[in-house]
């Protein structure tokens, strides 16, 4: 029997039992659809995290002051006050694996424009900061080295601040007041959205570091900074850069051997890698739950095919009487189940893509429909069809023609 004839026979018998064929396919449709939606959500989450890593700046290392000790009580890391712009300069000069450094000093403060006010994070940074964090502008410019050295009162502000202070007004050239000190807005940052911890990264005001240190947030330690962002020259040099930073700072801070360091070096890429790893685990988990529903769909196919074989015993007998061989019967029933699972797979793919889009639309989640997920779930559906269709088809093919003909 030719493949085309067998396909025709299979399609005809599926058409004759439209409702039953559809319900059987439903299992596969839901299974494939679920796999595609789940994998799309998982992949979307991963893509978002990867984007955030890139948005945060690549190859980043954070240097924080050590813990303070007040009356024998040790405070947490980063509470110390022993990190200065000079440390940053030394790291830049003394560490070969470091490409750029950006010492940071600032705090949350009220910012006023006209009759509007807004509480936001005001941070003093060097011009290099924007490059390290991969941050571009939508309008205006960032401050330069001269403005930095001259402690000029200029500010680059984030989108959220623009919205809250200026509304629809153009902020460029306007004067905002930070702790009653007037600052001219010279640039607006491109939006970055939420960080992976839900923090609004656009709710920021950046001013030159020196301005922050000298004019806005004075400190009893001159040139004090809250942390130093360091960019390693290459991702492979992250470890090396960390080591060099530790060496330079230990020397400068006159650390004794065995003494706990008075600073902390953190590798941000590692943190993000962990986040990415957990997103990966999540998408695997979602995917495997969806796969289970595909298997259940396959069992549905097997069930229906077994019923179908019993119901059509006489037909099988007639076919055998007129010369169908075992393999013709096997192939006929196998074709039916494979056609069902393939058609179900195709419909499921369509519905899955649609479902993923709808999910994205209503939840605002980032989704990513990957080709491999489509191929995987479709071929898995085909596999399910063959695997679960084989037993009923085999049973049909082994029927005794006489018994089959007499079957009532």
């Amino acid at each position: 029997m030719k493949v085309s004839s067998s396909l025709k026979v299979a399609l005809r018998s599926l058409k004759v039992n439209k409702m039953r064929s559809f319900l059987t396919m439903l299992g596969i449709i839901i299974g494939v659809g679920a796999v595609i939606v789940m994998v799309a959500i998982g992949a979307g989450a991963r893509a978002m995290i990867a984007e955030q890593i890139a948005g945060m700046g690549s190859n980043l290392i954070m240097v924080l002051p050590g813990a303070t000790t007040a009356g024998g009580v040790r405070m947490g890391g980063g509470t110390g006050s022993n990190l200065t712009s000079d440390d940053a300069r030394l790291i830049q000069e003394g560490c070969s694996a470091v490409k750029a450094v950006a010492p940071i000093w600032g705090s949350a403060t009220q910012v006023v424009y006209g009759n509007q006010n807004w509480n936001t994070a005001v941070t003093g940074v060097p011009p290099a900061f924007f490059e390290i964090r991969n941050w571009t502008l939508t309008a205006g410019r960032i401050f330069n080295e001269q403005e930095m050295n001259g402690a000029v009162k200029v500010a680059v502000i984030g989108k959220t601040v623009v919205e809250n202070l200026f509304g629809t007004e153009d902020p460029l050239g306007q004067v905002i007041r930070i702790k009653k000190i007037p600052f001219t807005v010279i640039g607006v940052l491109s939006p970055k959205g939420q960080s992976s911890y839900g923090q609004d990264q656009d709710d920021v005001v950046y001013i030159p570091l020196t301005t922050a240190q000298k004019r806005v947030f004075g400190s009893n330690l001159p040139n004090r900074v809250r942390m130093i962002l360091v960019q390693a020259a290459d991702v492979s040099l992250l470890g090396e850069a960390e080591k060099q930073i530790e060496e330079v700072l230990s020397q400068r801070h006159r650390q004794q051997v065995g003494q706990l360091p008075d600073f902390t070096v953190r590798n941000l890429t590692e943190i993000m890698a962990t986040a990415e790893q957990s997103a990966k685990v999540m998408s695997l988990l979602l995917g495997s739950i969806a796969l289970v529903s595909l298997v259940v769909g396959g069992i549905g196919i097997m069930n229906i095919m077994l019923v179908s074989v019993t119901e059509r015993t006489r037909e099988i007998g007639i076919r055998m009487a007129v010369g169908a061989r075992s393999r013709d019967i096997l192939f006929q029933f196998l074709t039916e189940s494979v056609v069902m699972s393939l058609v179900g797979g195709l419909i499921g793919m369509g519905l899955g893509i649609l479902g993923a889009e709808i999910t994205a639309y209503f939840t605002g989640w980032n989704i990513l429909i990957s080709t491999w997920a489509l191929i995987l779930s479709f071929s898995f559906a085909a596999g399910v069809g063959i695997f679960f269709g084989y037993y009923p088809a085999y049973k049909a093919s082994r029927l005794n023609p006489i018994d089959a003909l007499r079957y009532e």
Partner: protein
Amino acid sequence: MDALIRVEDLCKTYEVGDIRIPALNGINLSIGAGELVAIMGSSGSGKSTFMNVLGCLDVPTRGRYYLEGREVGSLNRDALARLRNEKIGFVFQGFNLLARTSALENVELPLIYGPLPAKERRRLAGEALQAVGLAGREDHHPNQLSGGQQQRVAIARALVNRPSIILADEPTGNLDTQTSREIMELLTRLNQEKGITIILVTHEPDIAQYCRRIIRFRDGKVLADRLQGDRSGQGPKGTEVEGEV
């Protein structure tokens, strides 16, 4: 020339649990090409089992069955299927047509298990329907046809592969007298015009009268095997025959 069908010491025993039921108990027969044979006997006489063996649907427990000189008993499932496809046509009491399938496609069924391309299959199926007087009913489904018409479709299906033998198991069992006569006339005509060997099982002496040779079975053995007087040519003119019987 060898007989078309020859059986030697044919035995078939069914085993149901521990009990052995002999259905055929040493049959010796030969049937030549072009014969029209009726097999009669009460139920349980083994005639159906005999037909199954002749039709290559079943294999004998003991003894030999030669079809066109070839020993069939030792063949495997696939080889038997091939023989059924090429040499044998079946006509059943209950018609056994595929429901929800057109007459033409029912007739085409044996051909789809053969090597012919679809177009050729359609043509042959159409011709077979014409031969049984059902031209124009190609697209009718079995439930749109009368019993006699359904049996004609079944006969067309048996014919379509140009078999050597048509085995008809009580072909008129579900039909009224008038229709039965039409079916028997069709079968005798096919026997005479196309020279197809026809073996039919029947209870009814009326039906058996159409056949020149009548074999009677009892308890798995041949009880009688006799030739009737030469009645060839009378079958198709059934009405004349009826007066005499």
